[in-house]
């Protein structure tokens, strides 16, 4: 309690002034740890590059790391896949324009955001029960769910997240990092069939190498 009225304000401004003239400090994280107040909340801001494009690559890592699931995003990830958001469509500052990936000249499809379809999750429930709702069995759960629906519907992923207690970002992030999962419904004929993602990539690589070496498939594998 200050006895002189306004003293608190002066002290506060004093601190501001001191900080103002202090040199900027670069902390060599992680060797040095910054002294962060427990209730400090940094500001979340996406940066733009010199071309005015968002620098975010939609890699989904921040969304996975965020302990309160407050980060989500739409747009193409680095694997050329469309991230489905779980919030209301209006809440997204959509990154619809070029990412570095697109600037690189690779053709990247741009599917519009569609709200996910509701799903009869009885089959998902059975699979989850067989795995004791254990998020450590996530890969097996996802594989079995894909076997039922022949792709991974968003509604199923959400259901898995809710039941296992794993964050949706984790479930979705895990699924997208394995090439044998597929997120497009069977109606999307151009998509790689379920379970074949890596096999197609590997066969393509081996065939390209074979023809570059002029082995014509003759040499033993």
């Amino acid at each position, binding site marked *: 309690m200050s006895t002189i009225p306004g003293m608190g304000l002066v002290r506060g401004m004093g601190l501001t002034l001191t900080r103002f003239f202090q040199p900027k400090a670069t902390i060599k994280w992680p060797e040095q740890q910054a002294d962060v107040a427990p209730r400090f909340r940094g500001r979340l801001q996406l940066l733009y590059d010199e071309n005015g494009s968002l620098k975010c*690559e939609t*890699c989904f*890592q921040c969304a*996975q790391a965020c302990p309160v699931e407050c980060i989500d995003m739409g747009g193409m*990830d*680095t*694997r050329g896949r469309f991230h489905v958001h779980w919030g209301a469509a209006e809440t997204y500052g959509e990154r619809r324009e070029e990412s*570095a*990936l697109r600037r*690189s*000249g690779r053709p990247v499809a741009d599917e519009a955001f569609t709200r996910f379809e509701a799903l009869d999750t009885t089959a998902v429930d059975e699979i989850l029960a067989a795995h004791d709702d254990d*998020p*450590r*069995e*996530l*890969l*097996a*759960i996802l594989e079995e769910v894909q076997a039922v629906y022949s792709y991974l519907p968003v509604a199923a992923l959400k259901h898995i997240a809710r039941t296992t207690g794993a964050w949706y970002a*984790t479930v979705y*992030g*895990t699924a997208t*990092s*394995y*090439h*044998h999962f597929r997120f497009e419904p069977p109606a999307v004929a151009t998509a790689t069939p379920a*379970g074949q993602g*890596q*096999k197609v*990539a*590997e*066969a393509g*690589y*081996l065939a*390209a*190498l074979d023809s*570059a*070496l*002029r*082995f014509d498939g*003759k*040499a*033993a*594998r």
Partner: protein
Amino acid sequence: MSFVVTPPAWPKVLTGRADTIAANPFDLDAAVRTGAFGALKKAAGMGASSTIDLIAAAGLRGRGGAGFPAADKWRMAAGVDADQRYLVANGYGADPGSHTDASLLAADPWAVLEGMAIAALAIGATEAILAVRADDASLVAKLEGAVLAAEEAGYLGDDAAGSGRRVTVTVRALQGTYMLGEETVLIKALEGRRAQPDQRPPYPAQRGLFDRPTVVNNVQTLAAVPWIVANGADAFAAIGATACPGTVLVQLRGPAGGGVAEIPTGTALRTLVDLAGGAGSHGLKALLVGGPTGGILPAEALDTPYEPAALRAAGAHMGSGSVVIADGRACVVDLARLLTRFSADQACGKSIPCRIGLRRLSEIGDRIATGKPRANDAVTLGDLAHDIAASALCDHERTATFALSATLRYFRAELDDHLLRSTCPAGVCTPIAVGSASSRGASR
């Protein structure tokens, strides 16, 4: 699955039993008659620390690519205070063009299982996991059968080979990406998490699967362990290169054929070319050593011994154990960009060198090969490869630069033909920018 025939004088550490049990490699009794699980009983009597000392004396190094001393890893894991430790046998075989590990598992699963049990006892792990590819469902089923048989016979299970200690083995069939072979990614996959590597340290041996100390060893590394226990450290240390003794499986490919061969480490690359049936009438142009992230070595490097340190110095690595002959018809620039593109596509996207660096690198390769290079592409290529290697999070990015770096280092003339004269001496790369065709191109 039979192996490439090698000179009879070459020692057989990994495939010694394969011929004898070839009729049915998954018959436990037949394997036991040839000595399987004898070493496990011996190791159970020897105790954990003497087993680790023995492996250290033998100088066994990892066969998964990095060549890390096995005993150091085991000691690290055994030294950490924990309620549970894990042993993971890495039989994923990430390179689709190399079947070394799968061949070993199909020809003699018992050597791997016995090695796993010995390693598990040595580090104090009660749970061991054999991670394999899900592609070959029949192999997975046979391996599961083998584990059951070994459990029934008392070599694994609650009282593994009379040691009084529990060692259970689980076969886990995985599919995903190339990165799944990397040890921290493999651990993530076993935990059901996103397939991206972790920063080291802490090493998996300190904090791995479910945050417990975990030893990840390649299946070949583990298959050598029973042999060392049975024949002694000195006998093993006497085989092959002094710095990395023993034998290793290589996947040979060339115009004349190929296959999987067991060779002593330190064998000259020239000998491997001969084993693969030679380079044929077009002559040897280059040797692709190490799989998709491997290096491309010129004919002058044929005297390099197949051994981690020497290969690294030459700009390649053991990697997936693949050794491919490119003959005179191939274009090294084309090969390098193919390898780099696959490596970039398979990279996990976690770190910037991985996500953006490798993509830019493969784009430079594509530009050069398609006759649309930018003026400073050769310099950018060198700088970028250096920066990626220096800032990489995992070994994948570091080694993915090898292929294009090799063209800079060994095949500069051929690269310059593409860059400066828009010609491909081997006549592989197209389209060549017609307008800028040089005197050399025009005089053809």
